[in-house]
């Protein structure tokens, strides 16, 4: 896994569908691996391939016009199952950023824990991105984490996005949560001795 997040400019893969659940991102039958690698192959499996495993021509990942490291999707992206495999498959496929007007909570955490940046934009800005890409599939999107903005190259339209300061530091420096939690061992022991019951 590529740790650390650097600012990037990239073409985008548009997926203007709402409520994309993690069962679509990676169907359950592909969750049987016991490592984190190789899930990219089955990213959006049932939208990408038909029953005979032939690529579905009308699905965006099979359209050579659209590629890049930024996925742009409709609202409530990543709802449903908590499977972190969804984030692993996006990362393994090569995505570093997912843009949507709304993210499901667990997915957002899972993405951040895998150094994928979920960028939440307004519904209006999301539509602007879709329009820009529809007009020109080679349209560039610039994502700047330090300054917390996202910009459409062709039009210069941009929007600020939120990210909490702790997660921003983790992404920029490649830290993960366990490093921080392990540093709290004294506090954890103190907490445990203060509670007579396990609740």
């Amino acid at each position: 896994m590529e740790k650390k997040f650097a600012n990037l400019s990239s073409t985008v893969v548009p997926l203007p569908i709402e409520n994309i659940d993690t069962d679509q991102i990676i169907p359950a039958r592909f969750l049987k691996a016991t490592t984190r690698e190789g899930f990219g192959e089955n990213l959006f499996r049932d939208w990408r391939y038909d029953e005979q495993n032939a690529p579905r021509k009308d699905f965006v990942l099979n359209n050579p016009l659209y590629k890049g490291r930024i996925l742009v999707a409709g609202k409530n992206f990543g709802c449903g199952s908590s499977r972190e495999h969804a984030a692993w498959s996006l990362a393994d496929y090569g995505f570093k950023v997912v843009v949507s007007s709304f993210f499901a909570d667990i997915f957002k955490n899972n993405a951040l824990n895998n150094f994928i940046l979920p960028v939440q934009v307004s519904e209006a800005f999301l539509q602007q991105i879709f329009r820009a890409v529809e007009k020109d599939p080679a349209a560039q999107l610039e994502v700047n984490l330090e300054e917390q903005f996202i910009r459409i190259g062709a039009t210069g339209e941009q929007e600020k996005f939120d990210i909490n300061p702790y997660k921003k530091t983790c992404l920029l420096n490649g830290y993960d949560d366990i490093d921080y939690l392990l540093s709290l061992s004294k506090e954890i022991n103190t907490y445990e001795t203060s509670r007579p019951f396990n609740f």
Partner: protein
Amino acid sequence: MGKTLFDKIWDSHIVAAKPGFPDAVYINTHFIHEVTSPQAFDGLRKRNIPVFRPGKTRATPDHNVPTIDQHLPIKEALSRKQVEMLTKNTTEFGVEMYGLGHPYQGIVHVIGPELGITLPGMTIVCGDSHTSTHGAFGAVAFGIGTSEVEQVLATQCILQYKPKRMKIEVKGQLKKGVVSKDIILYIISQISASGATGYFVEYAGEAIRNLSMEARMTVCNMSIEMGARGGLIAPDQVTFDYIKGREFAPKGEDWDKALAYWQTLHTDADAQFDKVLEFDAADIEPQITYGTNPGMGMGVTCSIPELADIEATERPSFSKSLQYMDLQPGSRLLGKKVDYVFIGSCTNSRIEDLRMVAEFVKGKKKADDVTVWIVPGSKQVEAQAIAEGIDKVFEAAGFQLRQPGCSACLGMNEDKIPAGKYCIATSNRNFEGRQGPNARTFLASPLTAAAAAITGNVTDVRELI
């Protein structure tokens, strides 16, 4: 100002809250299963650290397990490997495990409560979104990803931002033929699959208070389907009576002390919620979903919305969903033929669910061209069903009582619904392909599912009782 129940539990579990950092929250109970844990154990190995408090994690395989011939080795190689890996990891790291054939094995969210592991006031996590089920006991319980499973194994803590608080009050009394599954499907259909994202929900009101523990679990189970981080219900006498005497529940003097504490677990009268929603139980009909997310539901006698009733930006997704289901806008589901009936999953596979179904089908027979799978949530539920003769009722009706596991809820084992077929299911997700590639799912209560098993069609169960 007073505190909500959620705040009381959350705040009393904060180990460290440094400015600029998320809260480090202590976790009392951690459940693991075979699908979302192997990479977490691998992480510990890479860091060369042990499981910090092995006694606070419990493991059971459920997602991959076959539901027939569980005494034989698992046929499918990858499933077998994942289940074996859970045994290997838990043995190596000293975590208690209820493997296949163990009398405590079952769906992780069914066994926690029935064994008395799930208790009021706890913080509970599992690498599984339906961990919200345990909130029925007045616990703060939520699903996490595998990186977070590793955090909990390594430190018994998790880093989290505190969600906002929502209260959902369901007033009044349920009508005949309407059960707890209908309450939660109704709420989700009203507020959508993302209506509670960012919130932790407390369910309250007369209709909730009147539910049994198992029915409350059904409600809390589906909190995640409206996007909520979790859902909980204040513990009361119903809760305490359910817990008392269970295998791992406190006993003797410990029980008295625990009870005294649990009785303080309720939202103070002057506490503030960030959002409050109210519903009336009398408005709730038996529910059914028609689309491919749990928010696409309606009363069983209603019609699917017309395209014109849907907001313009949402029309493409709505049409895509109906296309997948091969259903027309504006049409009714009543009378629609079903091919499979699945009664099971962590939403509705407890003994009360099976009893409810058995009582309804007693003396009836399933329709000829319907396959009916009843999958108990645990070995204990299975044993209890057999002890009560429920298995005989099912057999006479032509229903198959299988062995415990997640089964057709997500089709990771062989229990898949074939492409293009319709299944009425008591599980919690109707996503595309959830029950098998191109399978079509209608979510409903055990009663509504059982009615369809008898008639072979989507049926208003109220006409049969």
